[in-house]
């Protein structure tokens, strides 16, 4: 399945157009992120399908930022799904990455994965391989919208109570690049208490996801307490879309209504 991607990347490397390809590698039954600098390494290329499609997705965008900081003048290629492309578009606008230094190698997500993610757009525009899937309806948010106020409160209170403040959601988020994080600010969030302030802690994170969350679902996958974080952040995206007409990651130049920073 990965022949087209492998060939494209191989050509880019041989022609010297990129210094490396940030993708996934399979080794000894494990799948992990890897920067392929030598075309010979591409034999171990993986697309992140271990037991199920897309079950070993990692925040490659986050690693790309680290690479760009270390090697700002080099060009790299990166493996992207629909969500990753949304993330990159935002990171370019937030000036965390340079558009001309990142080449997108896109794969589309199969129906099974798109449905599990309830994805708005399960394929990147820079599509090389894989299906151009269809938009999936949002059931999880709708089911909470149907609840009354009191029922919602009880629901979320119970979910947030299991939080162990591992900060995995923040750590794995490909859009969290702040050097100083509000969640680690002792004056705002009490230390030494688990669960952290219910629901303040999670609502604070949700607010910070405005204009940033690209609905990749890595947060929910990283939560050891199985808190439906993705549903919460999907609602955030829905509110911003309805009230401000902004859909995170869909526009190349339109900035989030909460991003007013101009860097000269």
């Amino acid at each position: 399945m990965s022949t087209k991607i492998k060939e494209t990347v191989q050509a880019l490397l041989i022609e010297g157009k990129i210094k490396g390809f940030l993708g996934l590698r399979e080794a000894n039954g494990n799948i992990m992120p890897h920067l392929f600098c030598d075309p010979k390494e591409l034999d171990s290329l993986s697309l992140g399908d271990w037991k199920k499609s897309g079950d070993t997705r990692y925040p490659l965008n986050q690693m790309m930022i680290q690479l760009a900081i270390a090697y700002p003048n080099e060009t790299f290629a990166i493996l992207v799904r629909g969500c990753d492309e949304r993330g990159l578009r935002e990171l370019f606008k937030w000036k965390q990455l340079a558009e001309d230094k990142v080449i997108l190698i896109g794969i589309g997500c199969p129906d099974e994965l798109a449905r599990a993610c309830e994805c708005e757009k399960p394929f990147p525009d820079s599509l090389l391989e894989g299906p151009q899937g269809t938009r999936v309806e949002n059931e999880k948010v709708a089911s909470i919208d149907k609840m009354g106020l009191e029922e919602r409160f009880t629901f979320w209170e119970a979910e947030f109570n299991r939080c162990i403040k591992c900060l995995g959601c923040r750590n794995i988020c490909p859009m969290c690049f702040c050097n100083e994080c509000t969640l680690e600010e002792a004056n705002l969030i009490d230390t030494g208490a688990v669960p952290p302030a219910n629901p303040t802690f999670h609502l604070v994170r949700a607010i910070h996801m405005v204009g940033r969350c690209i609905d990749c679902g890595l947060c929910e996958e990283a939560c050891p307490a199985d808190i439906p974080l993705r549903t919460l952040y999907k609602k955030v995206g829905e509110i911003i879309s309805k009230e401000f007409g902004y859909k995170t990651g869909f526009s190349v130049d339109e900035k989030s209504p909460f991003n007013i920073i101009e860097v000269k």
Partner: protein
Amino acid sequence: MTFLKKLLEFSGLHPDRVRTRWVSSAEAVEFVHEVSEFVEDIKKLGPNPLKAKAKEAA
């Protein structure tokens, strides 16, 4: 505020528990009026579920 109210509503907290009003420091009467009115409106909404939770924990 629009966003915050909708987020609170999704989390099970009544959006009218949060309000923004601009009052100048020279408008003491208006300030008193705004706060008193807000207190009355909140009382009508009933006790905040978070307060009940805190009492339970204590």
